[in-house]
């Protein structure tokens, strides 16, 4: 997501917002601003015009490190054959009731 820097262009920030209901901050989009303080102000105008959130994080897009799309198999395939990690793998007899 790193952009080619050109002179006079405001840097790109990624915006994360915590919604009303106590959930984690969630990525909502990005915007340009001269610095972090203005990025928060701009994020308020661009991403919370309808009470979408109670808290804003902004991070310079350059500072984000991401996994490579090509690593998908190596990273996530090992989880595929471990169905026992899900509670539904185990049969609980009806007599035992809710567990």
């Amino acid at each position, binding site marked *: *997501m790193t*952009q*080619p820097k*050109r002179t*006079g*262009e*405001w840097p*790109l920030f990624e915006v994360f917002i915590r919604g009303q209901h106590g959930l984690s901050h969630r990525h*909502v*989009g*990005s*915007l*340009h601003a*001269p*610095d972090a303080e*203005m990025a928060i102000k701009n994020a308020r*105008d*661009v991403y919370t*015009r*309808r009470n979408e959130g109670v808290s804003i994080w902004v991070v310079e897009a350059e500072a984000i490190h*991401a996994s*490579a*799309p090509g690593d998908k198999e190596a990273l996530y395939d090992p989880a595929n054959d471990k169905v026992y990690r899900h509670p539904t793998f185990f049969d609980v007899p009806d007599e035992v009731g809710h567990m």
Partner: protein
Amino acid sequence: MYAQMIKSTGQGVKSLDEMEPQERAFQERIDANGKIEPKDWMPDGYRKNLIRQIGQHAHSEIVGQLPEGNWITRAPTLERKAILLAKVQDEAGHGLYLYCAAETLGITRDEMFEALHEGRMKYSSIFNYPTLTWADMGAVGWLVDGAAIMNQVPLQRTSYGPYARAMVRICKEESFHQRQGFDIMMKMCNGTDAQKKMAQDALNRFWYPSLMMFGPSDKDSVHSAQSMAWKIKMNTNDELRQKFVDQTVPQAEYLGLTVPDETLKWNDEKGGYDFAEPDWNEFFDVLSGNGPCNHDRLETRKQAWEDGAWVRDGMLAHAAKKRAAKMAAE
């Protein structure tokens, strides 16, 4: 639509057998309704087409503020003024969501602005028509935003993740725009004879330009076929136009207004209206720069950008100064 006349850069649609393994995997993912994300491999044509389409859509949102901004200071009540202000602010927001989505494809927002200002990128033909009366604010919300929604709802399922996500946000906000327009029309149609006449006049002027928003028939176009295979276009222009007419005619009847088309007639067999095509020569003329307001819109937009330059530069300088002061203190 907001992205009219986007010609694909592909050479017609390839079959899966003709594709190299990488492109084949890409197409299969799209066929299975999977999403393409910024760092994923994608064909050059897909990337270029999306930049043009999303960019043009973003420019339309930004230029689209101008015909309505014109009426903010002239709104008939404080409430209408506040509503119109909120709507125009939304359009700015929609432009920003879309520029962000386009930026994930490797172009910057400032580069897109330059392309717009130099005429290398377009915006929707609809914004080159003047807004002459307050009823035009009603007609724009009702018809123009109505047509936009028709196009944008299916785009929430488009194959490019950032574009689809921007579209979800936009659609959520857009229906307020259409309703506030219809509300203005209702008010005027229940008003004095002069007000009702004004509403009819606005419908007369905006009906055909609204139909043009969907673009000319593209059922045989190779460009459209490629865009549809890539799922960056979800329906043909004709499908969407038909849907728009079928939805809008009963609303006009409710308002007691007459759609300015003598040939308009319900067709039981197809379950939709038969209607007259807009004047496509006018459409191409407006798109190539000869509409009533092309010059004015672009000049206003460029002026705003140039007038804002000292603010942008000043804020960057201020940010640099603050950063330096903070480092000196540490």
